[in-house]
């Protein structure tokens, strides 16, 4: 009995089938398609128990195709508006849609649909994870640390927007393409960050989100129309960050910052891949935010130890990044970099530009950084006051522990 299946085969195949079937039936039948695909997997999981097929992918594709015709017959009797597919020439056309390159094309269409500006930006991620990546509502909720009900609402709102705007299932062309590509990259970037910055206990969930974002990003790179230097830079950035994923958490499941990470645990093949991607990204002189973010990540990886980090270079990249995309979080980071670099006057200049309100629920990051600043200028009482402010506003348990560790070392310093 052959029992090894490729990891995530079902999940990935689910995304493929939903995309291809949507291409055949149109976005207006998305829900029927999703149900049908789900049925196929339940059937597979029961039938394969005793008798796994020799070629599981072919089996799934064939089952999906049969399901197409099944749904078609059912819908036909319900007199819904449908393209006229018969078993003749159109069925051959359907066969062609299941070829490798066409499957990828359909998936790209789905990604571009998920990132359509008519969809609420918060709904895009959930919708992409559901339709392109084959995540269940439960899995999305757990990955995004959100309630299942919220995800359900987001998905139904996304579907509604698609119906109301009568979106076409395609990859935009001409001038519309670069704009939409921006939005696609943003969604992939957010999915990746959800994984990378999430402090969810299960390391697996984080890795899956990061992996998924990278898989989708590679899909963009494979297609000549969607390939761009910014996409290369985004992929390089993901490689650089992923290389550190395992080192971010110690064996006690505690978050480690760059300073505490065991650099031997960094995954160097990913660093090399990132470098290769970066070389391709800089062939074009126009740099995106992703270029600078990747450059910053690369600079951290280049340092042999935390102490040897080239903070001046990093600060320069951040200045570029903030000029292109002004954000309080960049300014905060620059302040933190200046503290590392012992340039406390400049750190203060950055802090003076910031206000706690800029950071909403992530305000603990601001207070934490200020605590570091006061520690650096040996104003320990104020440092402790700010650590307490951070502790009052942090919700994440791992971050909380991290801050508490900092506080206890501060209390020792104060004595």
């Amino acid at each position, binding site marked *: *009995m052959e*029992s090894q*299946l490729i990891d*995530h*085969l*079902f*999940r990935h*195949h*689910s995304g493929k089938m939903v995309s291809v079937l949507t291409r055949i039936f149109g976005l207006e039948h998305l829900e029927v398609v999703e149900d049908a695909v*789900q*049925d196929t*997997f*339940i059937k*597979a*999981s*029961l*039938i*394969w*128990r*005793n008798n*796994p097929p020799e070629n599981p992918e072919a089996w799934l594709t064939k089952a999906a195709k049969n399901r197409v015709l099944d749904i078609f017959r059912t819908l036909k009797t319900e007199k819904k508006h449908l393209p006229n597919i018969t078993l003749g020439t159109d069925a051959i056309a359907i066969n062609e849609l299941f070829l490798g390159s066409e499957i990828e094309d359909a998936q790209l269409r789905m990604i571009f649909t998920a990132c359509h500006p008519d969809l609420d930006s918060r709904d895009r991620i959930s919708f992409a994870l559901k339709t392109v990546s*084959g*995540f*269940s*509502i*439960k*899995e999305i909720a757990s990955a995004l640390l959100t309630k299942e009900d919220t995800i359900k609402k987001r998905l139904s709102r996304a579907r509604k927007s698609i119906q109301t705007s009568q979106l076409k299932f395609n990859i935009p062309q001409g001038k519309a393409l670069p704009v939409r590509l921006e939005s696609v990259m943003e969604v992939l970037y957010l999915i990746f960050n959800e994984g990378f910055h999430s402090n969810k206990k299960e390391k697996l969930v984080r890795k899956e989100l990061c992996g998924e974002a990278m898989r989708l990003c590679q899909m963009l790179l494979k297609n000549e129309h969607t390939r761009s230097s910014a996409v290369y830079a985004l992929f390089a950035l993901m490689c650089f960050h992923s290389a550190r994923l395992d080192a971010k958490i110690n064996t006690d499941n505690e978050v480690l910052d760059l300073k505490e990470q065991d650099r031997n645990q960094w995954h160097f093949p990913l660093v090399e891949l990132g470098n290769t991607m970066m070389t391709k990204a800089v062939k074009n002189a126009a740099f995106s935010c992703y270029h600078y973010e990747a450059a910053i990540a690369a600079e951290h990886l280049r340092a042999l130890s935390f102490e040897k980090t080239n903070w001046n270079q990093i600060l320069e990249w951040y200045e570029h990044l903030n000029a292109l995309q002004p954000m309080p979080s960049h300014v905060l980071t620059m302040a933190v970099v200046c503290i590392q670099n012992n340039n406390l006057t400049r750190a203060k200049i950055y802090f003076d530009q910031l206000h706690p309100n800029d950071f909403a629920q992530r305000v603990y990051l601001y207070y934490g950084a200020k605590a570091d600043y006061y520690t650096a200028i040996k104003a320990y009482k104020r440092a402790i006051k700010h650590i307490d402010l951070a502790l009052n506003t942090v919700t994440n348990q791992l971050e909380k522990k991290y801050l508490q560790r900092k506080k206890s070392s501060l209390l020792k310093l104060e004595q």
Partner: protein
Amino acid sequence: MKEFMMIFIGADYADLGLSPEELQNRMGKWFAWGNKMEEAGILRGGNALNPDMRRIVGQNRTVTDLTSAEVKEIVGGYYLVEAQDFDAVEKVAQDFPDYDLGGTVEIREIMVFDK
């Protein structure tokens, strides 16, 4: 050696909203269990059952078509194994993958008729 049937009741995948990933993981556990029994040389057969059922009841042979949603404890499949006694099969049944989904394993001995 005697023959036993392990009957799997409940834990209908269609009703549980499992994701493709979870379905694949579950299937992996079923594979592993099947392999283990095969390697031990005790597996004599088995099948999974589709959830749709037609029921014929009583004197009047009343016929009803049912789906899993309408049946409280649906039989989802069975395995036939060869074993010394109930205790041995109970041990084998420890690896049934779906206890956490509320599944049940019922062990029954196959009756042998004198020839």
